[in-house]
């Protein structure tokens, strides 16, 4: 299909191991950003987070990868898939990048590596991503990656006195490769 593996440009994705537990714990303390996609906003102790992560790994997450900056081999984010439905051939994904690296194209690069990996290794028709209406940057990125809006759950999420819509976006296999096929 193509030669793109789990490395591209400045990034490498590696499967989660316990070595990255502390990094993930720190990420989940970034409440200003984690609310963009995570429903469990107050994970206070490491023990609580360990239980949260273990439970999710067993019951919900499918692939969970750490995004590594190849220049210094340091983790700069994570990306994962969940709710894999083998009957419908669909899966959901989410991504988090630490703030320092959000201005460039790290998120886009990591997304491409991961989506390509998912389509290459699983019989998936569509990748879903849910994004809240206040997360304009993610919405813009998903649309340019070929994601199309499939629906809106209105006033789905309550945060700090307000309800927000959740948009359900989907990426079909052929839409990813329309542009990607020309550059890899």
């Amino acid at each position, binding site marked *: 299909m193509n030669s793109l593996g789990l490395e591209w440009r400045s990034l490498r994705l590696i499967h989660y191991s316990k070595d990255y537990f502390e990094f993930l714990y720190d990420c989940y303390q970034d409440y200003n950003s984690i609310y963009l996609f995570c429903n469990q906003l107050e994970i206070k102790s490491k023990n609580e987070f360990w239980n949260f992560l273990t439970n999710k790994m067993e019951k919900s997450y499918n692939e969970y990868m750490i995004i590594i900056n190849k220049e210094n081999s340091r983790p700069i984010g994570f990306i994962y898939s969940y709710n894999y439905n083998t009957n419908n051939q669909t899966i959901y994904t989410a991504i988090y990048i630490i703030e320092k690296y959000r*201005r*460039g*194209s790290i*998120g*886009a*690069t990591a997304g*491409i590596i991961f989506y390509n990996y998912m389509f290459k290794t699983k019989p998936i028709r569509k990748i879903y991503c849910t994004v809240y209406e206040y997360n304009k940057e993610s919405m*813009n990125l998903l649309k*340019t990656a070929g994601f199309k809006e499939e629906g809106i759950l209105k006033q789905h999420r309550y945060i700090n006195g307000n309800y927000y819509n959740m948009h359900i976006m989907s990426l079909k296999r052929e839409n990813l490769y329309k542009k990607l096929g020309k550059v890899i």
Partner: protein
Amino acid sequence: MNINDKLKKIIESTIEIKIEKNIEDIVLRKDLQVSSLEMLWIIIDIEKEFKIRIEEEDISKMYSGKDVIEYIKNKLSHSET
């Protein structure tokens, strides 16, 4: 075509919008609503067109067309020496 024209062509082709302003005056994310993925496609096309390598940390410093043109000129001058 000079660097400005080539860059304008690359950006227009990526975002599929005709740019009327001087490319140097364009603020990529503000004026053209360029997403991080579109920025990545632009960078890849620039690398191919000018045969240069653009580092990730430099991409985050490129706000305007002028920044990109200066960067390309700088890279090209270093590759010639």
